C-alpha cells in the first residue's frame, strides 16, 4: 500500500495540482481543455481509433481464443506461440517491426516493387490504419485471457445437449455459446478499450506525428511546448475517464461472477 501510495498516488496528486496551479491558480486549464478545438479533436480521434481498435482486437481475439480453447493440440500450440511470445517483446520493438514491414523502404514495398506490382512505394505508415494495426497487434493478448476463461467455463455437455436436439453448429454458436461467453466479451472490450486510451509508443512511432492521440498530446504539451498546466489537465481528464470505465468493468465482472449476465 505504501508503495502504491508513493509510486502512483503522490505523482498523480502532483500532476492534478499542476493542472489547477500552472501557470496560475484556477480552472483555466480545464476551460481551455473543453474550448480548444485542437485538444478536443485529439480526444475525439483517440476515442474513434480506440473504438475501432477495440472492435477489431476483441473480434479477432474471440476467433483466436475459440481455436485456442477448442482446437486440436497443434492448433493450440501454434496460437500459444503466436500470441504469447510477442507478448513478452517490448512495445517499442513491435512498433519498429511494423515500421520495418510497412515503411517506404520496408519489406512489403520493396517486395511489391521487385515483383513489379507497384512503381513507387505506397504510403503505408504515418497514418491511422497503421496505428490501428499496431495497436490491435499489441492488445489482442489482453483480450484473449478474459475470453479464454469465459470459454473454458462453458459446460461441454450443454453444447452436446444442443447438438443432440438437432441444432446446427451456427445455431449452437449464436444461441448458446456466444450468450454464455458474453460476460467475457464485455470484460475483454472494457480492458482493451481502457488500455488503448493510454497508448503512447505505438501511435507515436506508427502515426509519425500525423495522427496524434491523447497520451502523445500530453507528452507534446509537457516536453515540446512548455505548457505543463494543459498537459496536466489532459492527464487528469484521461484518468477520470479510465476510472469511470474501470468502475463499469468491475460491475460487469461482478455480474459475470454471479451468473446474472445475459
Amino acid at each position, binding site marked *: 500500500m505504501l508503495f502504491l501510495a508513493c509510486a502512483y498516488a503522490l505523482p498523480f496528486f502532483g500532476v492534478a495540482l499542476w493542472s489547477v496551479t500552472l501557470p496560475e491558480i484556477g480552472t483555466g486549464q480545464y476551460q481551455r481543455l473543453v474550448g480548444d478545438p485542437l485538444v478536443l479533436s485529439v480526444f475525439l480521434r483517440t476515442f474513434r481509433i480506440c473504438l475501432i481498435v477495440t472492435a477489431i482486437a476483441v473480434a479477432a481475439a474471440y476467433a483466436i481464443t475459440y481455436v485456442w480453447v477448442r482446437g486440436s493440440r497443434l492448433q493450440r500450440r501454434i496460437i500459444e506461440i503466436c500470441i504469447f511470445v510477442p507478448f513478452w517483446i517490448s512495445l517499442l520493438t513491435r512498433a519498429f517491426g511494423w515500421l520495418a514491414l510497412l515503411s517506404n523502404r520496408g519489406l512489403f514495398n520493396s517486395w511489391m516493387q521487385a515483383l513489379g506490382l507497384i512503381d513507387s512505394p505506397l504510403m503505408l505508415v504515418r497514418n491511422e490504419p497503421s496505428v490501428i494495426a499496431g495497436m490491435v497487434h499489441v492488445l489482442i493478448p489482453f483480450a484473449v485471457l478474459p475470453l479464454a476463461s469465459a470459454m473454458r467455463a462453458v459446460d461441454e455437455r450443454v453444447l452436446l*445437449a444442443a447438438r*443432440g*436436439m*438437432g441444432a446446427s453448429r451456427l445455431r449452437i454458436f449464436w444461441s448458446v455459446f456466444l*450468450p454464455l461467453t458474453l460476460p467475457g466479451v464485455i470484460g475483454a472490450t472494457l480492458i482493451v478499450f481502457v488500455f488503448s486510451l493510454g497508448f503512447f509508443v505505438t501511435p507515436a512511432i506508427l502515426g509519425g506525428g500525423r495522427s496524434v492521440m491523447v497520451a502523445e498530446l500530453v507528452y507534446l504539451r509537457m516536453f515540446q511546448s512548455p505548457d505543463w498546466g494543459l498537459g496536466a489537465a489532459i492527464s487528469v481528464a484521461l484518468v477520470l475517464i479510465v476510472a469511470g470505465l474501470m468502475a463499469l468493468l468491475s460491475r460487469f465482472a461482478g455480474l459475470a461472477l454471479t451468473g446474472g449476465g445475459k
Partner: protein
Amino acid sequence: MTTKAVGIQAIGIGKSFGHFTALRDITLDVAPGEFLTLLGPSGSGKTTFLMVLAGFQAASTGRLLSDGVDITHSRAEDRSYGMVFQGYALFPHKTVAQNIAFPLQVRGMGREEIARRVDAIIARVGLVGHEKKRPAMLSGGQQQRVALARALVFEPPVLLLDEPFSALDKHLRGRMQEEVARLHGEFGTTFVFVTHDQSEALSLSSRIAIFNHGRLLQVGAPRDIYERPQSRFVAEFLGEINLLPVDEVGQCSLGTSGLFEGARLRAPRHEQVSGSAVLAVRPEHMSVSAEPPADGNGVAARLASTTYLGAAMRLALATRSGTQLTVTLPSEAAGRVLNHGPDFWVTWSFENGFLLPEQS
C-alpha cells in the same frame, strides 16, 4: 400423445481411444418402446456405448441400425434422439420455458405451436409456475424435470438418459424414478438408461444389459439377471451373494452337484461346469436353523455377528473352512432362531442355488 418408438440394433460395436479399448464387440438389440438399462461399474463402457448410440462418438468398429436403416455414420443432430445428461446440461442463460422451447425452435416450428407444446409438457412434468425462472433458481429435482421436458418435448423416437439421478438425494431419487417410469409409460418412447445403481436398474427396467471392462456380459429381464446370472461378476454386481467353492462337480439325477466341506450340495442342472466351480445363493434365499436339514442343501456355520436393518436382520456366519456367509432373515424370524447359540445350519432350497464357473 405417443411417439413412434424405434428399435436400435448394435452389431459388433467397438470403440478405442488410442491404445485404450472402451468397448469390445457389443451386439445388442434395443426393442421399440422398451426401457433398457445399461448397468456397470464406472469405466465399464456403458456411458461410451450410450454416446455411440447418441451419435456423439463414432464407433471404431461395427454397425448401428435403426429399424433396419444404417445410422452408423449419421450425426447426432440428424439422429435427434432425446438426451438427459448427467448434471442435466440445461442452458444457464435461458429460462425454463426457453430451455424447453429450444429443440422446437431448432425444428422451425411456429411460435404459437411452440408455446402450446411447451405449456403442455410443463404441466405434465409438474413445473407450472416456474416457466420464467433460470435453471440456477431451481432445485435439483426441478432441474431434472426441465431436462426431461426438454428431451421429450420434440417427441424423439429414443430417449437416452445418462445417470440422471446421480446428483439427487435418496428420497428425491425415488420420486424421480417413479416420474421417469410414468413418462416412459405415457410417451411410449424407447428409453435407454445408464446407471451404476443396481437397485435403480432392477426396479425401473424392462431389460438390463450388464457391462464390465468394455464387454457386454449379459442381457435380460431384471428377474432373470438377478436370479440366473451367468457369471460371477454379474452375480456379485447385482446385490449380495454367497459363493461356496465346490469340487468334483458332476451331474446327478436331480441336477448338478458338487462337494463342499465333504458334503454334496445340489443345484439345478448346469452342464457347462465341471471339476471345480462355485455354488451361488442370495442371502435372502438362505435360512438358519438349529437342526441339520432332513432333505436339501445345508452347511454348518458359526454365527459371527448380526446387523439389525429394521424389517430384516443380516447375519454374518463362517463355515468350518472359513467361507464367509451372509443370510438375511425377516427380523421376527431371526429373533426366534438366534436364541439357540452360535452353531447353526445354513439351509436353502435346491432351486435357489446355481452353479457358476470358478473363474469369470
